[in-house]
């Protein structure tokens, strides 16, 4: 059964959605069955494409919407949303540890 879930999240990291968190987001998005899109109010982009995610230029405080369509949409939005809302320190810990 396909459902669509959409929610808004705020970028918390002072460096914004830069290359590393965008890469982690795209890889994680690829682990879900659902189709994932990310929108900034002006455009929707493919959540599995780092180039697309980076092109949003999402700095700190920017609100992004995640839209997932598929059997695991609920979980996908929750997990991916948590990635967007990590602080800079949390992003550092995710790969440096």
């Amino acid at each position: 059964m396909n459902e669509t879930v959409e929610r808004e999240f705020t970028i918390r990291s002072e460096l914004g959605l830069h290359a590393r968190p965008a890469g982690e987001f795209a890889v994680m998005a690829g682990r879900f069955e659902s189709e994932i899109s990310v929108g900034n109010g002006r455009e929707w982009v493919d959540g599995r494409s780092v180039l697309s995610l980076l092109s949003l230029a999402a700095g700190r405080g920017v609100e992004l919407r995640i839209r997932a369509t598929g059997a695991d949409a609920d979980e996908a939005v929750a997990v991916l949303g948590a990635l967007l809302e990590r602080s800079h320190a949390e992003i550092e810990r995710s790969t440096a540890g």
Partner: protein
Amino acid sequence: MKIMDILVNDAVILNLGVGSKREVLAEMAGALAKVEPQIEADRLLEVLQEREALQSTGIGDGVAIPHGKMAGLDRLVASFARSPEGVDFESIDRQATHHFFLLVVPEHSGGQYLKALARISRFFRDAAFRQQLTNAETQGDIIRAIAEEDTRL
């Protein structure tokens, strides 16, 4: 921000020698250091490798954006290199990487870094732009392709 304002034209490499990930980074760092007095090749290579160790900057679609911070640099600088054969850059889609956009940022670059990343990502998202780089026959062709995209977007 315009990419042509940060691109060091003379450091653009039309065809990289076939090689490993490390050799690509070394060749690009060397080319940039040769024309950019604020950059020391060995130090830049070290910084780039430290960053790659955290997560590959091979972001898929045949594109990598190796980058790093350098103390003492007074502005963002960028270069580009192409590998017609493709390099195993441990990219996230596991495909070979052909286009390398190197970004070196000062220690406190603020929002400039994110803006430069976003802009170059917009360029590379465009398949026609990637094709132009693939078809380039001279260093000048590559610089022209980037300059045209800079005007268009």
